[in-house]
């Protein structure tokens, strides 16, 4: 095996490999299913290529036989053989080209197919899946891993096929010419095999050490690069750099120590089967046989010409093995992503009637061990406002997220308009339930399309009306291309402005039930009051579930539910809860006090 530097490309970069099992053969075959007919066609061409590759060699041998035969060798016998050789070259070239073109175009289609399939799948997995991974992971699988599979799809299978067919054909031809000399020519193979076996001893252990070292340097790189801006602000650049430099030196030391013995053995084993060595054995063996009269001198030529082909595949396979390995690992990650269980969709969807919401004895845990919600029951009457309050970690955001089915509860049920959310089709559910999140991120597309996210068919007039209601129309009109300005390109909106775009979006979608994270940023006072006006417009007349952070804003709610440790501990109106003198009353007292506190006063 040649230790190509490809081995050095981090095969399993960074310790994010939570789901990188060795890909099962079945999983791989399933991934390739959409292009299987084309792969088979390509394989057929590849077989033609593998066999025709020998034709020119055989022709040269035959040509020699003709030219050397005493008295013979007229043009009538020479040119047909030469023509056949050139024809062989052409067929070899064409079939190789066609096979390669088929797999490469098939690969392009497969890439699109897999990316689409994964995107569609990701739209159906529980949102919690995204919480456990960063978006970089998704990007890595959808983009990098799919691209990495290229070698597997476009090259590996074809290379393997040629590597098997060509030597077999060559072997058959040589056995036909002279079986004894064939055996002699094969002598280097067991030598190579022995050296290779020694080298492969403890290969798994070697690879394990390699991937450990790789993980160490990867995390050193990540830590150094990601943290450097912060580290610099603490004036510890030298220290952090030293840590990185040490890790880099360790890695270089390891790599040197790791690769050197392998390099030696691989040099040795390759020497046995390298083309010069094979030529030498063929020529020497042939000379010996000819000297003893066992064969005609001219019969040595096939061995000199084709003998090299016997061992060529060992070289090829070895070159590709690292790439193949990383391609297979990528395929494993793609398969694992597609294997993530999606949120189940109902088979016969039910239509909700009315806008009442009922949480019935709902329990939920993110990790299956730490309960976040324990037996929560709560009813939202149509057209009323319900506020969720409680300390951070009390489960109020989690409870709100169960309503638009970002997660399914472990126990209990959520009923919208008389139908359990699991029995409502997701499109139907989102017609009924809207959501305004705290952390608004707009899409990199026009402002108009951002507002029309929930109703792509909405006209410009409607979009503008909603933008006015959300107090953002004037700002949009100031943008270089107005509503056609693209977010992040010629529309740079502040946090507060983005929030108002999100409110316009919710207004246009016009869902009768709304989940709202009351978190108007302290962007700047002007922006804040505009957001507040926009929110007041939005919530009017809807069934509202609001995650409240600042108690003063929700004192007028129809009901306030106080969560503590995943349970509803108090419920009532602002006045009722103050009178009850429990957790809410204490939170209110703290709120009033802090609102007036000035920490810069000394």
């Amino acid at each position: 095996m040649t230790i190509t530097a490809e081995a050095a490309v981090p095969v399993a970069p960074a310790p994010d490999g939570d789901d990188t099992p060795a890909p099962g053969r079945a999983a791989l075959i399933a991934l390739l299913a959409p292009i299987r007919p084309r792969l088979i066609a390509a394989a057929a061409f590849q077989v033609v290529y593998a066999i025709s590759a020998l034709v020119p060699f055989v022709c040269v041998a035959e040509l020699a036989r003709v030219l050397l035969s005493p008295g013979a060798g007229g043009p009538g016998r020479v040119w047909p053989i030469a023509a056949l050789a050139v024809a062989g070259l052409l067929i070899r070239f064409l079939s190789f080209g066609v096979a390669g073109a088929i797999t490469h175009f098939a690969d392009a289609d497969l890439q699109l197919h897999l990316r689409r399939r994964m995107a569609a799948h990701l739209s159906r997995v529980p949102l919690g899946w995204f919480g456990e991974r960063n978006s970089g992971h998704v990007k890595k699988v959808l983009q990098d891993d799919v691209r990495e599979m290229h070698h597997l799809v476009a090259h590996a299978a074809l290379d393997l096929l040629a590597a098997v067919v060509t030597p077999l054909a060559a072997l058959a031809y040589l056995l036909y010419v002279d079986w004894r000399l064939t055996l002699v020519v094969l002598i280097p193979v067991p030598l190579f095999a022995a050296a290779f076996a020694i080298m492969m001893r403890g290969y798994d252990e070697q690879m394990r050490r390699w991937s450990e070292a790789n993980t160490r340097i990867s995390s050193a790189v990540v830590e150094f690069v990601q943290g450097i801006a912060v580290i610099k602000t603490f004036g510890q650049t030298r220290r952090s750099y030293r840590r990185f430099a040490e890790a880099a030196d360790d890695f270089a030391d390891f790599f040197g120590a790791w690769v050197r013995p392998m390099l030696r053995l691989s040099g040795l084993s390759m020497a046995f089967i390298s083309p010069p060595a094979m030529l030498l054995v063929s020529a020497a063996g042939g000379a010996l046989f000819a000297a003893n009269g066992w064969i005609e001198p001219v019969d040595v030529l096939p061995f000199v010409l084709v003998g090299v082909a016997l061992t060529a595949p060992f070289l090829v396979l070895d070159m590709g093995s690292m790439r193949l390995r990383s391609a297979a690992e990528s395929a494993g990650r793609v398969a694992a992503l597609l294997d993530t269980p999606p949120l189940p969709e109902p088979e016969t969807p039910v239509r909700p009637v009315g806008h009442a919401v009922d949480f019935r004895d709902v329990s939920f845990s993110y990790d299956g061990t730490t309960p976040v919600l324990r037996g929560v029951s709560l009813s939202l009457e149509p057209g009323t406002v319900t506020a969720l309050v409680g300390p951070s970690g009390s489960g109020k955001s989690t409870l709100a997220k169960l309503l638009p089915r970002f997660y399914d509860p472990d126990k209990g049920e959520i009923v919208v308009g008389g139908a359990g959310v699991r029995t409502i089709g997701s499109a139907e559910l989102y017609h009924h339930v809207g959501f305004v999140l705290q952390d608004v991120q707009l899409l990199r597309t026009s402002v108009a399309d951002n507002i029309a996210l929930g109703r792509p068919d909405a006209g410009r007039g409607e979009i503008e009306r909603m933008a006015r209601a959300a107090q953002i129309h004037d700002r949009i009109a100031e943008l270089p291309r107005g509503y056609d300005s693209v977010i992040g390109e010629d529309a740079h909106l502040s946090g507060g402005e983005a929030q108002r775009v999100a409110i316009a979006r919710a207004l246009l979608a016009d869902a009768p039930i709304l989940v709202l994270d009351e978190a108007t940023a302290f962007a700047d006072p002007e922006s804040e009051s505009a957001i507040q006006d926009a929110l007041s417009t939005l919530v009017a007349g809807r069934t509202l579930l609001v995650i409240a952070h600042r108690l003063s804003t929700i004192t007028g709610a129809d009901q306030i539910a106080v969560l503590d440790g995943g349970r509803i501990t108090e419920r009532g109106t602002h006045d009722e809860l103050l009178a009850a003198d429990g957790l809410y009353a204490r939170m209110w007292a703290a709120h009033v006090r802090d609102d007036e506190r000035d920490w810069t006063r000394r």
Partner: protein
Amino acid sequence: MIGELGAVLGREHGARLRRSLLAMAVYGVLQGLSFAMLVPVLRALLSGEAVGPWLAAFAAVVVATAVASYVQAQYGYAVGLAALRTLYHRLGDHVAGLPVGWFSADRVGRLGQLVGKGVMDVMSVPAHLLQVVVSAVAAPATVLVCMFVFDWRLGLAALLTAPFLWLAFRWTQSLVQRSDTAMDDAGAEGADRVVEFARQQPSLRAFGRTADGYDLLDDALVRQRSTLRRLLRTTLPGLGTVALTVQLAFTAILIAGCALALGGAVDVPELVGVLVLAVRFTEPLLAAADVGGELRMARGSLRRIKAVLDTRPLPGTGSARAGEPSVELDGVGFAYDERPVLRDVSFTVAPRTVTALVGPSGSGKTTLTRLIARFWDADSGVVRVSGNDVRDYAPEDLMAQLSIVFQDVYLFEGTLEDNIRIGRPEATDEEVREAGRLARVDEIAERLPGGWQARIGEAGATLSGGERQRVSIARAMLKDAPIVLLDEATAALDPENESALIDALATLARDRTLLVIAHRLTTIAAADQIVMLEDGAVVERGTHQELLDLDGRYAAFWSERTRARGWRLTQPA
């Protein structure tokens, strides 16, 4: 490319690189020679002469080739390892000297790629790729020379194909290069859309846009495929032409040889030998075509590494000594991407006083604090910290003056405690805990399983915005620098979070010089000085009362705030 490699590696490795190149060239020539040796061996064999001496010579060349192969591999890897080490150090060294402002999220992502995969790419050039290229030139050239020695007419036939080969190579290269750029662009767009798609799942779902309805992603993916198909359509003919031209050499020799043999103008045993040689002639060329992709990748990485190394670090390695802890801005102007952000800003924060910066978003408040910390240098005017121009400090001395509590708090993959300790790594456990307690991080530790040892960061427990800022305050407490730059959290906080944060800030502000970007005006009414920024310029300055009396922009701001505070989502039923 070898020149670029040499430049990046530096002079001390030049000799090594040259030695390795020489070994590769010797190996290539020996490869060619070992093929050429076939001709006399076969001629002797076919014409019935003594084969023994030729075989012995052949064996000697083959052994020499094997030795050369071994030696050049060792040399190549030695250079590769040297490249690995040198690049890590040079990149690390250089990056450590770049201004903090250079490290945008985008750059950090690319730098991570570059230090990881990029360095490996470059290493593979001397370790592995270069040999293939050198052999592709040296071996066929040697064979060609030998052919001329055997029979000049056959040699000439082979030589005539060389220009075609060269043209085909160049043409294909230019095709591939052009398409590569298009592929990169399409790939970047696709990757961006995938990240957007993943990040925005909640809103996409809430508005009924699953993958089917999300055209932005699908369009990008389709465009990626069509770009790839276009790449294939343009480059496959090129690659095919190369493969075809490579065959041309063999065909030319074959036809010329047959014609000569039929005319009786050539020694037939020797012709047969040359024909066998012609078969071998082109193999190294095809191997070189195989590694073309990897070479291009390595070259791209090499260029990007060079670009990073060419970025200028902030000038100045002064040795100024800090005086009383103050901050002074004197006519400071700054533009970002040619867009002016600050214009002629002047004010002073006296030692142990509090100055609040207020103003609408986009007015330049954050940029101002970053110039004080020297994330960038001001375009005009002077920023002074503790009596000296920031450019006259050694970077670490400047940072020793400042504690920075900004909104984008970076948490390491590590324990809660580690994340505080970064403020002063040599601090004792007690000191770390004490700082944590003062910043009310102890409450976070209580909440998390694992307490102080709980792992946080992207792959660990998530902390809310307020909690992250408390960690950041704990770092600042531990660091204990005399000047504090603070960007107040804008995110809405739960009452108990807010209460903890206010306690922590009050403790941090005590006895220090403080410049705070205030988002909640109520909290800064007692500041010694309030500076109001608008469009990058100071429009008003004074105490809270002075500015209210002035009845200008700040007063308007204040009344908006008062109105906003009285807001109710719904009126009582």
